Structure formats: structure tokens, C-alpha cells
């Protein structure tokens, strides 16, 4: 075994240096040079201030904005650090709900959200993504149906015609990649930024 020690030590140190430092640092340099905005986290600035990342969802609650999906992320309880409290779209602590298909807690939560949404837009089927939490709790997207479902509420809150908002949503729909991969979607932050721009004009 002892004659194995030298190769083991030397290779460990060398591999640590190459794969643990040289590789990630070189990649950081190259990526920062070729794709500076993306490497930094696809941040969006308005008036010189960072308002978010185009890839990270935000917790929209007002009736005058389109809402993202429910989020199960949490944060440490300010009153008691050993406990956690719900903190939707906490981008420093991603997580899903981890509730299973026979969970009573899941049934209660979904039913509550369903009742709220049905009251908001009666007679329309509720898209499933509006009542389910995403895997990361930071899903930036909703389905096109989920965006269209919210049009009456936003139109009322902003006092704009529904047709105008439907056009706005239609313009924000991203199709499947290469027409094949993933699912069609609407980026909620981008949609709401466009909504604010609409109001300014």
C-alpha cells in the first residue's frame, strides 16, 4: 500500500488543481468574456437598478400583475432560526413542496387555490400549473393558458380592454425549442414588464 501513497498524493493534488481550480476559473473567465450577461445571471435592470433575473420567477401578488405559479420555498423564521416560514420565490433557497400524490396537505392547498381562482374567472377551467408548485419554487414561466386565464383580473385592475392584454400575452408566448423540445410558455416577469411599458405609453 505504501508504494501507492506517492502516486495517490501527487495525482490528488494535481487533479484538484486542474479540475477544481484551473478548469472552473478558466471557464469563468472565458464565459464572462463571451456571454457576460448570461454568466452573471441574466439580470434585468430598469433605471440602473436590478429588478430581477429573466430566469428567476418573482412573487407577484397584486391583482394588477400576472401571477406566477405557487412557490414552496421557505426562509429561516426571523423569530426562531431553527424553524422555517413560507417565503415564496426565495431565490437563495430553492425547493419544491415535496408533497406526494396522497397528501392531505396538498389536497387542502390545491383546493384553496382552486376556489380563489374559480371566483376570479368563473366558468373557465383552471390550468393545472396555476395550482401546483414548481420543482424549484422559482419557475419563471407559466403556460399560455395560465396567462390567458388571468387576463380578466388584470384587465379589470388596470382598466384596460381584455383584448389588448390577450394580444400582449400572445406576443410573449415562447414556443417549443426547435418546435419540439419542452413546452410552450410565458415568462411572467417579461410579461409584467411589458404590461408596465404598456401603461407608460
Amino acid at each position: 500500500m505504501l508504494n501507492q501513497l506517492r502516486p495517490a498524493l501527487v495525482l490528488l493534488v494535481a487533479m484538484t488543481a486542474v479540475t477544481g481550480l484551473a478548469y472552473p476559473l478558466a471557464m469563468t473567465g472565458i464565459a464572462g468574456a463571451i456571454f457576460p450577461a448570461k454568466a452573471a445571471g441574466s439580470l434585468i435592470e430598469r433605471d440602473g437598478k436590478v429588478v430581477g433575473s429573466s430566469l428567476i420567477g418573482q412573487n407577484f401578488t397584486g391583482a394588477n400583475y400576472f401571477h406566477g405559479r405557487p412557490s414552496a420555498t421557505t426562509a429561516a423564521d426571523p423569530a426562531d432560526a431553527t424553524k422555517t416560514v413560507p417565503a415564496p420565490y426565495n431565490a437563495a433557497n430553492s425547493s419544491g413542496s415535496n408533497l406526494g400524490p396522497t397528501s392531505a396537505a396538498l389536497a387542502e392547498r390545491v383546493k384553496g387555490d382552486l376556489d380563489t381562482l374559480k371566483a376570479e374567472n368563473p366558468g373557465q377551467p383552471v390550468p393545472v400549473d396555476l395550482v401546483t408548485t414548481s420543482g424549484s419554487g422559482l419557475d419563471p414561466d407559466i403556460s399560455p393558458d395560465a396567462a390567458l386565464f388571468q387576463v380578466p383580473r388584470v384587465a379589470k385592475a388596470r382598466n384596460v380592454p381584455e383584448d389588448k392584454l390577450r394580444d400582449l400575452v400572445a406576443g410573449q408566448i415562447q414556443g417549443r425549442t426547435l418546435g419540439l423540445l419542452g413546452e410552450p410558455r410565458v415568462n411572467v416577469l417579461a410579461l409584467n414588464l411589458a404590461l408596465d411599458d404598456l401603461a407608460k405609453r
Partner: protein
Amino acid sequence: MTTNGWIQIALYCAVVLALVKPLGAYMTRVFNGERTFLSPVLAPIERGLYRVAGIDARQEQTWLGYAGGMIVFNLLGFVLLYAILRLQAVLPYNPAEQSAVAPDLAFNTSTSFVTNTNWQSYGGETTLSYLSQMLGLTHQNFVSAASGIAVAVALIRGFARASTKTLGSFWVDMTRATLYVLLPICIVFTLFLVSQGMPQTLGGYVDATTLEGAKQTIAVGPVASQVAIKMLGTNGGGFFNANAAHPFENPTALSNYLQMISIFVIGAALTNVFGRMVGDERQGWAILAAMGLLFVAGVAVTYWAEANATGVLSQLGLTGGNMEGKETRFGIAASALFAVITTAASCGAVNAMHDSFTALGGLIPLINMQLGEVIIGGVGAGLYGMLIFVIVAIFVAGLMVGRTPEYLGKKIEAKEVKMAMLGILCLPLMMLGFTALATVVSAGLAGPANAGPHGFSEILYAYTSAAANNGSAFGGLTANTLFYNSTLAIGMLVGRFFVKIPVLAIAGSLAAKKTVPASAGTFPTHGGLFIGLLVGVVLIMGGLTFFPSLALGPIVEHFAAVAGQTFATGG
């Protein structure tokens, strides 16, 4: 289920299949020590390393020397990683000011990365500094994968050689796997991932003011360089807590697709390396076919189950499939496909929360791991795991016709079968033994977040994932406790080394044997009959061992879900 979903799945299989031959040819050259197109750059580096390390590249090792080298190397790697995690608070590259990792969590995480499991008791963005992510985790992602590939190559040489004591040099195989295979692919892959929006920065977490005026702290970091090797090396430990579901760890449908391909590509190509080295590529294709059959069956079941969303969602009249725990940009098909791939291989990265899968949708990932991750499997580990089953299958076939079993001209005798059984049996011992323990002690029962059979599934999944060196989880389980951190770590160690060492023993024993020329009585091992036999042996061994535990967890939960039953937690 949609036509588009099936097309996405079919295209995936086609792309992986198309890559098998070219990558297999390249890796064969690498491990035979031949020149490749990267040699002009890498050969001088390689020679320099060997000179400093005192390695003679032509000096080969016996199976004991090979195993010893691997163990010493992994042990030192473990000590280094443990030290980095414990000291991260005083080391550089720690903009989020993470404190030292607790001893039990550091033990669990070091074990997890050295064994290529990458179980996440830690929550990336809330626990680890950038230095720990790079120097600790990224580095181990490379070398643990490289050791897996090395052991598979040693076993292949055992079959390919005759009347010799040596299997090659662990040092050379490990170095070449890292420098010639993993690193070059990762460099290209990292840049692709950044082009899709994956961060690669040493800057600190960003504070944003949302449109509604709230403060949002956004965790970033050197993500892409780690994710590239995390997928390619079937490691699977996330930079972020939510792993590949996190938009920064998997920004687009295209990044998702390439991540899925990178999980399978080396494992699949190693079957071709096997075929080439034993001098008959058909032997490799036969093994890949057996893997492929099991894989496609698993994908079909999980996709169907997730599209139907049996349980709470369907009871409430929602259609559109089980989107709880899934991301909009991937949808049902790409999430179900990912779940089956990541558990068929020993990757364990997740792009959707397996804990929130339907009972039957979550059953398949569980079975994939319980079968020993032989469906493509971890890089190296999948091939040597499947070759263990091949030995058992050949033995069973030999018993049926009453002659000494042979495989590729090697007589399969008592020693090989005993070692194969040792490798196979240590997995259920860890998976079922610890599950049984956790369901009777209070420290274990404190873990599950879900009540009823799903809570049992959470425990079973954890130990299954640990022993199979997968690393995915039913994440509701509170596993960052002394009890779970230590028992899971034991499961990982046994699941890794009590398979690898018997495999090397088999390799040593096979290499020493003479090659017997094929005769009319030799059972052909490249045809449909052999593929069927192999699939049958894998399924029967898995079924006999694990059916009772599955019946208590996902199967009973499925019937409860159909009946509309729900379970509330006591507290």
C-alpha cells in the same frame, strides 16, 4: 400523453444511440494507450504528471494493486474534501459567508461525492462556499467518475485478456479518463450551458428589487462548470438545492435535453468499448439492447403515470398531468424522461421533484435503482454492474443445460459467481436493512414529511438511492440529521466499494484464465435469446428481492390514490 412527448423521447434514444460508436471508438483508443487527436496537447501533461508521481505508465497492476490504488486515492480524496468543507469559513471564495459545514453533514457529503453518489443532505446555495463547490465538489465529480470508468475498463480487460495476472494501471486509467474523456467534453459543454443562461461567475449573490418592490436575493455562482461534469460523470449533486429543476441549473428545454444526453452518453458508449476490447462489437450491442429494453419500458410507465396524475390532482378534476414539483419549461414528458434517465444511470440529478410524482411514476425510479442501476448506469458502474448480472445469467443458463458456463471464452466458475453474488447482495442488505431500521427507531421516523405509505416510500427511496450511489431523493425526508447522515453514508460506502472490489476480484480471476475456443455447444451471447435471458435475470432477482418493500410503499399508495384516500401528518 402527447405525440410530441413521444417524439421527444424517441429522438432522445436515437441521439444517444448515434453517439455510442464514435465515442466508444475514441474511448477504446484512450484506454488502449493509443494516440488520439488530443494527444499533442495532453500527452506532455500526462507524462509530466507520471514523472512527478513516480508512475511508470507501462507498469501494470494485479487486481489487488489496482484495487489498493483506487482505495488509497479515494480515501485521500475523502480526507481532502472533508477538510475543505469543515474549513470553508476561513478559506477564500466565500462571498455568501457560509459557515463551516457541520461534522456529520461534512462526513455525509464527502462520502457522497467520493462514492459518486452525490446525495444532497446539504442545500447548495445555503450551505456551501464557491470554493467548496469548485475545489471540493467539482473536483470529486471528475475523479469519482474517472475511478468508476477505470474499474469498468479493468473488468473489460479481465474478459479480453488470457493467462495474465495484470489488469492495467489504475493511475493511468484514472488520469486518462479525466484528461482525455471528461475534461475536454466538459469544457465545450460548460460554454454551451452558459450560452443557455447558466451562470458562471465568482460574484456574490445579487440583491434585486422586484416589480412589486420586494427584495429578492438571487443566488448565483460558478454553476456551469460544475453542472457539466455533474451530468457527464453521472454525479448529480446539485449546485443549488433544487438541482436541475432550478432555472439557473437548467435554464432551457435545450439545456435540459443535452443534460439528459450527457448522463447516458459515456455509460452507453462503454458497452461499445467493451465490445471492441473483447474483439466482437456485437457483445457490446447485446448488453446495450438489454439495457435499452428495460429503459424504454420504464419511460413508458412513468410518462403514462405522470400524464394521468392519479391522486389529489385528478380527484379535484384538474387535467394536464401531474405538474406538482415540475417546471413549466420542461412539462410532463421531459420531466418523466429525465426521472427515468437519472435513476437508470446513477446520476441522481433531478429536473422535477420525485417526491411529488404519482405513486407509479415514482415507482419506476425506485425500481431502476434497486435493480442496481444497470440500465446504462453510472459511468463505469453501470457496465460492471450489468456484467455481474451477465455472469449470473450465464451461470443460470449453464445450470439449465448442465454444462460449465462460458462467457467470451472464459469459463465462469465458483469464484466468479460467488463474487458476483456478493456484489449483488450487498445492495439489498443496505437498502432494506437500513429502511427496516429507520421505520422502527424514532430518529428514523422523524424523517418523512408525508404521512401514510408515501412516508415509507421516502425512507425506502433514501436508502435505495444511497446504496445504489444514485443521490436523487424523495426530498421531503429530513435527512440532514445525525441518524440519516451517518446511516446513509454507510449505505453509500458499502454500495460503492463492496461492489467495486468484488468486480476487480472477478477481473483478476478472469484475466488469469485461458480462453477456450467457442464450440458448437457454446451459448451465443450476442443474440435475442441471451438478451432476453439477461433482462429476465435482472428482473427476477430485483423482483424477488424488492417486491415486498415496493408493495408497502408505492404500490399500496397507488391503490389509495385511486380510491381517493389522502393521509394527513399527525402533528
